[in-house]
């Protein structure tokens, strides 16, 4: 995973420097970027202390993927790696966003959420939320107990 990320970052950097250097390359690459940007979904993770962590993923990624692929600074997030056996990727949605999610949580997800701290009616596990284009700009709240250890 780490290797892939590094490669991705490296190619992004390469793209940027190419854009600066050559107008032709810019045209070619900006077309590519435009296409690519269609699939990019931006997400903001809001910590209990108000910190806003911005990250982006592709359509089809889960919110857990977004955290892992961007090394979003959320300690302990996704301990079971998306296998529905822990609740460390617990996220809280705004009611309007929650209602727009295409799938309702299944029994197994609810079973795990029942063990989470700060459970709300709009809680979900990040590993079960798959990004779609209309989620661009999504803001999710991260329960304090995972990352603001004092509250534990």
């Amino acid at each position, binding site marked *: 995973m780490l290797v892939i990320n590094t490669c991705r970052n490296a190619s992004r950097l390469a793209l940027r420097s190419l854009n600066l250097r050559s107008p032709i390359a810019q045209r070619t690459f900006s077309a590519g970027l435009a296409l690519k940007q269609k699939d990019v979904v931006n997400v903001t993770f809001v910590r209990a202390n108000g910190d806003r962590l911005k990250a982006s993923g592709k359509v089809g990624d889960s919110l857990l993927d977004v955290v892992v692929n961007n090394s979003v600074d959320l300690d302990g997030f996704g301990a079971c790696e998306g296998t529905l056996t822990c609740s460390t990727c617990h996220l809280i949605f705004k009611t309007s966003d929650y209602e727009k999610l295409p799938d309702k949580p299944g029994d197994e997800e609810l079973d795990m959420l029942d063990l989470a701290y700060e459970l709300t009616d709009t809680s979900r596990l990040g590993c079960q939320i798959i990004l779609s284009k209309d989620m661009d700009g999504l803001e999710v709240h991260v329960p304090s107990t995972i990352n603001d*250890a*004092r509250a534990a």
Partner: protein
Amino acid sequence: MGLNLLSICRRGLHTSPARLQVIQGVAPTKRICIVGAGPAGFYAAQLLLKQLSDCVVDVVEKLPVPFGLVRFGVAPDHPEVKNVINTFTKTAEHPRLRYFGNVSLGTDVSLKELRERYHAVLLTYGADQDRELELENEQQGNVISARKFVAWYNGLPGAENLNPDLNGRDVTIVGQGNVAVDVARMLLSPLDALRVTDTTEYALEALSRSQVERVHLVGRRGPLQAAFTIKELREMLKLPNVDTRWRTDDFSGVDSLVEKLQRPRKRLTELMLKSLKEQGRASGAAGSKQFLPIFLRAPKAINLGEMEFSVTKLQEDYAVATDNTERLPSDLILRSIGYKSSCVDSDINFDTRRGRVHNTEGRVLKDTEKIDPGLYVAGWLGTGPTGVILTTMSGAFAVAKSICDDIAANVLDTSCAKPGYDAADKRVVTWDGWKRIDQFESEAGKAKGKPREKIVSIQEMLKVAGV
């Protein structure tokens, strides 16, 4: 660094790197020792390494192999839970972490010595004892602790000779926590489901000859106080060829209370009630086994082939014994009423009654109130044996944060260099040594279609590790 400090620091320092640091005026590396390589230890290490860029974390572990209850507690048929090992491995391979396996606090090294050699010591060695029923005949052979049974099927060194007697039809598990349910599931699962797990070979062999047909899961209190979590119950209800049978009487009045419950308790209770309503409908196939949760019964006596319970009634959430009793056929009795920790070094301020270290939010206490600076505790050794991995993780992060805060506030004096553990001339298993064991076990498992075949003998672990 002030001159005064310099001169104090110089005294008694003869090791050159430490001295160099002092002479150069560089703040010395902060050395932190974590005792116990289980989840609490690894999560604390993860946070310390991230927050303190100038620290070295040494993890000492009694066994040659790491991961504590993730390896020796988590049920073999829950491999997903063990994914945390990937994160722990990343932490262990951090350049500022050193792993010393096969080093036992209290025998190989004393707490006093560790405290002299480190700026801070964090105890995370868990809970390796269990609470007893305190009944006559409890020491007889057919009464064993669920903790030992778990250790047996999971290959904890020393547990391999438990030889649980599985020749009888009835097993009674006293206690209804998730450990109790894990044990029930191991006893009732189809063997083929376990053969593809890392259950030890000798346990699979013993389970293949098991005559157990009924497992009673007995709790003192009622369904509304049930200690198992919903995931574990749902798993039991889905187990092939196992018929779960509740007692209708146990649930009298429960229906009317469901709506008022908080969501987790409500969903758990609804699942029990649903299962109760459906029971007997799909009458169990011939030869199916039975899972029998029983509420409102308190252990009273252990007799030959049976166990006697007091019928209880609830007063404010407490179970109070009545004069009525019930006997349950019990060829094997498994006690699962909680773990407790042991005091491995006489310098630990240990609360014998509660089976844990005296502490306030992870800072170890000197006496009843005063904090002993530089000594910390996390995980079950500090909190008592409750909670899921999230609980341990949050707790360990919190204690690690306290260590960082104490260093920042100079509650801990980190101005003098500390040497760390001296592993010279000792049979210490390093992380590379563990990787050799890991590879050996994985390969041995592959041949049998299992994720790993655990080495159970410490001598063999040391041999494979090349120590």
